[in-house]
């Protein structure tokens, strides 16, 4: 008896305390939370609901519940498999590509004196340029036939006959990947460069006295110390790479034979070309689950305890 009233008292005081805390934070928290709930969280649950129905866009139309039918369909659809393959390949190629090249540029930049800022600015320009615009540029650069710029140089400098870049699966994927890497290098560079500033100089000096070479210092000091930065880069690039969409839409629109389709472009087609909203939503939910799962698993490979997911 005694105990339970005590517990009650404790819990009620805890509630009071919580309420007090909420009262304090609410003016600051509310605007963001409100917007988030309305336009991000609500659509999320709305999509979840749609994914279990045969959704009709007309207001007030019937939306029969179909259970897991849309999910079952996604697992048996050959095109989902193909888009999944291309999305994963895009991640596997562009995430390491951006990281390696971006880090390389950052290390180079960190080692030179004059002109650092100029180079840094120039390398960053693709990052802030609109995806649509750069996709259009790449499509035009890799135009087939002898008049395309890349083909022209390939012929002039290397003697390679004009390639139909966008008309073959792997060359088209290559173009999409190149764009992804090209656009992201600058961002990796800036973040890593900033990370480099935080490494105490004294460590390098000590290593140098011990006779460690440049790459020794890079692999034994810089990388281990900057693991949190690497993880930050990795997670952001990974999430970004799963969202590959506009470049595919603009450059190949999934062709040839639908073999460059990625998850989002296929989803888009299902929803807005074929009106299969239920099916598209099911794909969206599955994809979200996949990304969250991958992020959690890869966390282990980085010994970073900082990520409080």
């Amino acid at each position, binding site marked *: 008896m005694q105990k339970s009233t005590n517990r009650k008292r404790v819990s009620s005081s805890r509630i009071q305390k*919580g309420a007090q*805390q*909420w009262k*304090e*934070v609410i*003016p*600051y*928290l509310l*605007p*963001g939370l409100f*917007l*988030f709930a*309305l*336009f*991000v969280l609500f*659509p*999320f649950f*709305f999509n979840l609901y749609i994914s279990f129905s045969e959704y009709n866009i007309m207001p007030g139309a019937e939306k029969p519940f179909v259970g897991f039918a849309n999910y079952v369909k996604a697992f048996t659809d050959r095109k989902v498999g193909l888009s999944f393959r291309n999305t994963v390949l895009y991640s596997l190629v562009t995430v390491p590509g951006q990281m390696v090249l971006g880090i390389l*540029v950052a290390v*180079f930049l960190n*080692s*030179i004196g004059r002109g650092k*800022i100029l180079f*840094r*600015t120039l390398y*960053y*320009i*693709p990052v*802030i*340029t*609109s*995806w*649509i*615009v750069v996709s*259009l540029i790449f499509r*035009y650069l890799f135009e087939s036939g002898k*008049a*395309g*710029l890349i083909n*022209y140089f390939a012929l002039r400098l290397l003697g390679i006959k004009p390639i139909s870049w966008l008309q073959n699966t792997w060359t088209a994927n290559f173009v999409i990947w190149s764009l992804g890497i090209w656009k992201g290098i600058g961002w990796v560079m*800036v973040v890593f460069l*900033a*990370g*480099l500033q935080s*490494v105490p100089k004294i460590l390098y000096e000590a290593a140098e006295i011990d006779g460690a070479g440049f790459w020794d*210092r890079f692999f034994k000091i810089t990388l281990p110390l900057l693991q949190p*930065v690497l993880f*930050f880069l990795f997670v952001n690039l990974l999430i970004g790479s*799963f*969202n590959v969409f506009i470049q595919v839409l603009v450059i190949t629109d999934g062709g040839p034979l639908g073999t460059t389709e990625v998850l*989002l472009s296929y*989803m888009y087609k299902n*929803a807005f070309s074929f009106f299969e*909203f239920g099916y598209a939503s099911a794909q*969206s939910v599955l*994809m*979200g689950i996949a990304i*969250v799962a991958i992020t959690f698993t890869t966390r282990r490979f980085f010994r970073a305890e*900082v990520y409080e*997911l």
Partner: protein
Amino acid sequence: MSFRNNSVKLILYLALFVGVVVFLTPFLYMVAVALTRATRIMPYPPILFPRNPYFGNFAVVWSRNNFGRYFLNSVFLACSSTIVSFLVATTSAYSFARFQFPGKEMIFRFFLISMMVPGLLNIVPQFVMIKFFRLVNTYTGLLLLYSSTGVAFQTFFLRGFFEIIPREMEESIRLDGGSRFTIYRYIMLPLSTPALATLAIFTFSASWDEFFLALTFIKSEWKRTLPIAIRLFQQQYGTEWGLVFAASLIAIIPIITIFVVFQKRFIRGELTTGAVKF
């Protein structure tokens, strides 16, 4: 970590220079095409340095499809959404960095997970909401969408910076009887300028480039924004690439200018040291 050897340094410069050339060729090509006349057919050999630059494309672009109007619309929308996002994101990040309240980490986790789920299909439910508030075809509606879809990332990004600001700095204000708002206004904001500047350019360029939402939610022709105008130059049949790229250039030059002018301010060492400690 620096190279003593001068010849090594020279090689580094050379490598960086070659990298920049390769890196910027696409832009150069875009400029060249924009300065070429009659671009429905690709010129052969390709032109990288137009001998007689033709500025007609820019004149056509600016005068056709209300382009000037759309440009100003975009300026307005990008500026105001940057301001709105600034207010929402800083207060939100402040509450996660400096307050204790039940459910805090759970809400934050929701923020993080929402960043991973693709938002492509949200457009339909978002439309339902905006319609419910009678905000279709208003900039207010678009502003709400832009700031709400960005709030998760921005909170996540800023929280790290706010948390590394030493708490001791607030003590004196507290002793003087300063409120939470005083701390927010006079400690948090001024001490995280680089992060805020970074965020500002992110939000600015995000809404400057945004296409799908603007196209869907804006119904009046005269309220349209720049990315829509660029798309109008891509015809169903026979695109004139000179016009498309001239329009694109007009669209990206402001962003690049703002970036170059303010870049010293926002790419700083503090950037990641804070961001990785979330």
